[in-house]
């Protein structure tokens, strides 16, 4: 079953601004891990806005779970390059924020707070943040903040997780650690993920399907199914097969850049 379905979607900002994306059609299956890669300015973030209903498409239709998206969608989890944690809340309070807002949970937040806190603690433990529940975000390192941010996006069990370059600001080692964290979370309890990134290795390592986008206006140039067996170990990134996939995607990106200049 398709969870996300784009049907010939175009999008421009303002009435006569340039097209941000043009004629994009794609399908994301339930529990599929999809990565969208492309050079900066290819409308990756626009794609996120369209799926979550934060902005309406100029042309075409976007469907989420079989229903046309018009208006902000409830219960989509999002994490960005900046962790956007609230500095006046502790880590645990931060990741419980969705429980205070999502319709399904908010009416019983006060009553079942202890239960939710248990869920939060368990999730933090799974991402290796046990013992940091009562620290404030500014007392955590960048990688830890990003882990907490992903916890916040997952705590309410969203049907769709949108990740917008969530590892972009981290150093290479921390980034690989967080790849494995996301991989483990996904492997244990599959959910649908759309990961927007410009890191090809990240895309190939994590995703089932990788879409390559061109820029100005954003168009989908190629889609590549990653058939590396799961669960994937970080060592897989040093195999020939992995390198071939990355190289193939890199070739597409290279061609985009040549045709532009």
């Amino acid at each position, binding site marked *: 079953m398709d969870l996300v379905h784009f049907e010939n979607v175009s999008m421009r900002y303002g009435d006569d601004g340039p097209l941000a994306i043009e004629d994009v059609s794609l399908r994301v299956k339930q529990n599929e891990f999809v990565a969208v890669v492309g050079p900066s300015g290819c409308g990756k973030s626009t794609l996120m806005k369209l799926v*979550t209903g934060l902005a309406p498409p100029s042309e075409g239709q976007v469907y989420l779970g079989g229903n046309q998206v018009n208006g902000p969608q409830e219960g989509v989890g999002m994490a960005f390059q900046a962790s956007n944690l609230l500095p006046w809340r502790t880590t645990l309070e931060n990741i419980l924020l969705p429980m205070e807002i999502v319709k399904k949970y908010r009416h019983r937040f006060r009553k079942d707070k202890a239960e939710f806190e248990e869920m939060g603690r368990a999730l933090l433990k799974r991402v290796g943040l046990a013992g940091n529940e009562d620290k404030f975000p500014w007392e955590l390192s960048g990688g830890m903040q990003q882990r907490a941010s992903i916890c916040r996006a997952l705590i309410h069990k969203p049907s769709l997780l949108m990740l917008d370059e969530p590892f972009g600001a981290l150093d290479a080692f921390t980034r690989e650690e967080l790849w494995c964290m996301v991989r483990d979370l996904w492997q244990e309890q599959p959910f649908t993920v759309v990961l927007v990134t410009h890191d090809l290795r990240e895309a190939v390592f994590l995703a089932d399907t990788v879409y390559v986008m061109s820029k100005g206006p954003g168009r989908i140039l190629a889609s590549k199914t990653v058939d590396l067996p799961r669960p994937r170990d970080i060592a897989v990134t040093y195999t020939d097969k992995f390198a071939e996939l990355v190289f193939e995607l890199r070739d597409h990106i290279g061609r985009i850049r040549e045709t532009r200049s």
Partner: protein
Amino acid sequence: MTRAQRKRLLIKASPWLLLVSLTLLWELVCFAFTIPTYLFPAPSDIWAAWLQYRGPIMQHALQTLFTTVAGFALAVVFGLLLGILVGSSPIIYKALYPLLVGFNSIPKVAFVPVLVVWFGIGTVPAILTAFLISFFPVVVNMATGLATLEPELQDVLRSLGASKLDILKKVALPRSMPYFFASLKVAITLAFVGSVISETVASNLGIGYLMMSASSTMNMGLVFAGLVVIGIMGVAMYEVFALVERRMTRWATRGSEIAF
């Protein structure tokens, strides 16, 4: 005592040291140049005036404190509400801002006669002048705090199905608290300016009135005693709100004392 301890002690005592040395210098200048008391009283003359008139000074000071705090309280409530309105809607922001700036540019002393016509002399115009002069910084700071909310944070919340009210309650308001408490420190000192101005022009109570009547009899010691009392009350109230600010927004300063 180590060097670091001594340095910390010096920093703590520095405002008092400065105050004492300035007072001594003042006394010395008055004494050395034999400046007459009716022009520029020395600290010792002010002290004498305080001892002589402390009953009436305290009575008038309490009145000023009351009108100031009442006007300030009105300003906080009104400023908070208007600030939320202005900060959360771009249309209201655009529409109201020029009007607010225009209004704030009117010297409030020019407005006191109008208030007198409407409410008579005394307590009410003093409270209203304190209110009028001190609500502006609260509105501006509150509106700025709300209007500078990060768009990503709004996206995160909206994608969870949050209403505008949810975003305001969960994120925008708590995030604006450092701006709000900073504005309180400015507003309380301005409120003193407002109430004293009004008392000077139209009242028979309060420090402003006391100073007016004292200067008409050339009792400069008493005038200066009034000035000093206003200053002390201002500093005291400022410190109260600085303390409240530190308590309420510890997260904004990352738990450390003051930056730099």
